[in-house]
């Protein structure tokens, strides 16, 4: 039997840190054959990226150290190779693309130069490399390749940048492409296109594709085989469909159970009484750019209204305008019948505490120099009428326990917590103000799937307990499906469709909503296969 294209045997990687040795990867083995797509699935800290970095010789040693194992490329050990021979393999035989293409492309060189460099580094004459680069740009779908060769990375969109990375990686027709979370930062429709492009190119060249992701949907979309990693170890491996249908390891089971998009959809609330918030024709211009155009919507007390859209849809601008972090160009926002946009700063201050916001990234929304106690009690320092100072300490403890932390966490600082815990602190801070309406701006999208589910549960519990209303801004449709009562779909500053969850997810009327739904990935490979077929049909039907 001929050797596998790539085989990793019993790989262990440790990092020397100031806390002592940290075992990032322990005894990991997997293999990849030509034409195969192997997906490594894991949450943050699972060691999935470290494994890939070990294959690419990208681990800094020290502090990293490969303590055991072998990495074989066509039967040859990559770890024992002389460094010059090893270098010649990178890019030429094994190439890699990364999560954040803007950061991973050199900002000060033109994209043409960077793609050409890939080829000239491995000995191709530069005129030949230039012709090939233009051809590649065309192949990955960059319009006007000859002109765009001279452009710089910041002059492309996010999706295009990932296409550039792919063009560069495939320049020398490598046998293996390693893709580390290649679509994580992208909009769903762009994600679908990039994954489709990767599959297409794989068919063309017959390369093996090693894809790393945290997203069960991506597994369902592209994987032949899947390796599930947790805490540096492989917990389960097998054909993707089989692992999903019949998970063996408790971790895999939990991961699949936590995947959003499979729960019950909420029944519409019985409409009664006055709306809590009513937006009327809100418009916001930044110079000549119209970020919001005539946006109108209502939120009932206790209702969860999701606002869904891709980047540039204006959903975050809407949140900021509503909270008067940005001044609207025109329109009105009636909160309990009074227009927020017309209020004087003093009136607004009185109402501030009732409308609060949970931000996307708790690492940035919590002041790193304030302890948890200071962070939460600041609410009462600003609004002293809520609570007298003597009760602050007890109330902070109470709130921390309410959001699933413990009272003695109050003395710590934000950097001493994990991402999920930090978001809980941010929620506790919001609750300190006893708000009626909470705007969640992508509040769970930076979190791991299992943590995401916990935070969503927390938010839902708080709604039931305190009758909170939410405006839930998200790009992730499955989360919205499980959580929201009503959904508003936005595109380029406009609302294109609005309805109950069931209406939007089962009988979407607008083309854009349909495209969004078609592009979103279901964790079930069987469902995903059907969707893929439907999408291809839709594309074929289009002129």
């Amino acid at each position: 039997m001929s050797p596998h294209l790539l085989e990793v045997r019993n790989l262990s990687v440790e990092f020397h840190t100031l806390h002592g040795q940290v075992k990032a990867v322990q005894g990991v083995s997997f293999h990849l054959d030509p034409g195969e797509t192997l997906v490594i699935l894991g949450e943050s800290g699972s060691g999935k990226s470290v494994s890939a970095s070990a294959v690419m010789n990208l681990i800094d040693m020290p502090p990293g150290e490969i303590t055991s194992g072998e990495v074989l490329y066509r039967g040859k050990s990559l770890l024992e190779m002389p460094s010059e021979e090893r270098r010649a393999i990178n890019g030429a035989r094994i190439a890699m693309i990364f999560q954040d293409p803007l950061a991973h492309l050199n900002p000060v060189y033109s994209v043409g130069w960077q793609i050409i460099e890939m080829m000239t580094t491995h000995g191709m004459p530069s005129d030949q490399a230039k012709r090939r680069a233009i051809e590649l740009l065309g192949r990955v779908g960059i319009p006007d390749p000859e002109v765009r060769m001279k452009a710089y990375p910041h002059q492309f969109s996010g999706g295009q940048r990932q296409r550039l990375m792919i063009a560069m990686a495939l320049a020398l027709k490598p046998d293996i492409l390693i893709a580390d979370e290649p679509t994580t930062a992208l909009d769903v429709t762009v994600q679908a296109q990039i994954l489709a492009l990767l599959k297409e190119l794989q068919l063309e060249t017959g390369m093996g594709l090693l894809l790393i992701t945290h997203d069960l949907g991506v597994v369902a979309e592209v994987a032949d085989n899947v390796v599930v990693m947790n805490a540096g170890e492989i917990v389960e491996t097998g054909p993707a469909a089989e692992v999903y249908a019949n998970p063996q390891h408790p971790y895999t089971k939990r991961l699949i159970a936590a995947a959003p998009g499979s729960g019950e959809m909420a029944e519409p609330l019985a409409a009664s009484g006055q709306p809590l918030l009513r937006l009327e024709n809100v418009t916001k211009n930044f110079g000549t750019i119209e970020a919001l155009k005539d946006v109108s919507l209502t939120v009932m007390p206790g209702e969860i209204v999701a606002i869904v859209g891709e980047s540039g849809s204006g959903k975050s601008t809407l949140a900021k305008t509503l909270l008067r972090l940005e001044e609207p160009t025109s329109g009105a926002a009636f909160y309990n019948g009074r227009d927020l946009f017309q209020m004087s700063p003093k009136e607004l201050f009185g109402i501030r505490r009732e409308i609060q916001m949970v931000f996307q990234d708790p690492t940035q929304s919590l002041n790193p120099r304030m302890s948890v106690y200071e962070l939460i009690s600041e609410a009462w320092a600003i609004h002293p009428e809520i609570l007298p100072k003597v009760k602050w300490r007890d109330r902070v403890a109470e709130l921390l326990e309410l959001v699933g932390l413990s009272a003695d966490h109050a003395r710590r600082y934000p950097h001493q917590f994990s991402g999920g815990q930090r978001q809980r602190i941010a929620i506790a801070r919001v609750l300190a103000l006893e708000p009626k309406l909470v705007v969640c701006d992508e509040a769970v999208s930076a979190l791991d799937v299992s943590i995401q589910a916990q935070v969503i549960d927390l938010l839902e519990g708080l709604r039931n307990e305190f009758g909170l209303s939410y405006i839930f801004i998200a790009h992730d449709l499955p989360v919205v499906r499980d959580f929201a009562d009503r959904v508003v779909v936005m595109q380029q500053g406009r609302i294109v469709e609005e309805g109950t969850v069931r209406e939007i997810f089962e009988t979407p009327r607008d083309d854009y909503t349909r495209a969004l739904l078609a592009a979103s990935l279901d964790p079930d490979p069987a469902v995903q296969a059907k969707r893929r077929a439907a999408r291809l049909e839709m594309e074929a039907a289009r002129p």
Partner: protein
Amino acid sequence: MRHFIGKRAFASGLSLIGLVVLVFFLSRLTGDPTALFLPLDASLDSRERFRELHGLNDPLLVQFAHYVWDILNLDFGDSIRKARPALEVVLAAFQWTLILALTTIFFVTTSAIIIGSLAAFYAGGIFDRVATFLSLIGASAPDFWIAIVAIVLFSVNLGWLPTSGTGTIWHWIMPVAVLFIRPFGLVLQVVRGSMMTALSSAYVKTARAKGVRVRPIIFVHALRNALLPVITVIGDLSAGMLNGAVVVETIFGFPGVGKLMIDSILQRDFTVVLAAIMVSAMAIFLMNLLIDIAYSVLDPRIRY
């Protein structure tokens, strides 16, 4: 770009006007101008003649108008000490300063960039630690002290180098070397820090994944990204040197603008001081422009 240069020229023009006003009022309001312009032992009579000649008896605003008009015509008056137009005296000295500054900046830039880059690449290693410590000492050293210690050592005790003048290449070694030390220490630290950031960046990881060799990774991929803050610091230091390295020029008897300025001040040759200020300010304006252009050449994201 032309628009940008215009804007910059306008801003610098404002700065220059500010300076002109400052110098005028300081010279008129802090005492009797004749005390400023004339030797201490000038007679009352000659003071009065001086007043009459230079319109010092006119109202202040009229004096100011004359003063501005003369400056606009690049007429700073004659140097009292040398009986030549002040501007001519200053320009003669300025060329020496220019050569000294450019030579020093050239050595500082090349050596600090190469050593700093390598120190960042071998961060924590012995090369890095030695380079960092030496640069710290360099950045901490008072140049006048280094200069006189160097004179004692190399001129007096060893007799290798001349103590002052500009005659031969040997005359240049000590001024350049002394002037080199502090900027070298400062720039090296900036290069090292900036390169550390660049080398741990995502695009360097990409370059390694592409199989790019070590040397182009350091000096092509990382360095160009790391240069912006370095250029800022070099610009500030160069601006200082273009005004004449007062201390070094004085100690080594180097006929540059710095020494000229100090001598003129001590000998109350105020027209020369004023001309020197204007010439230096112009030079700094041009230098800042060069630096802005260097920014946009290095980083395509910067467009004016």
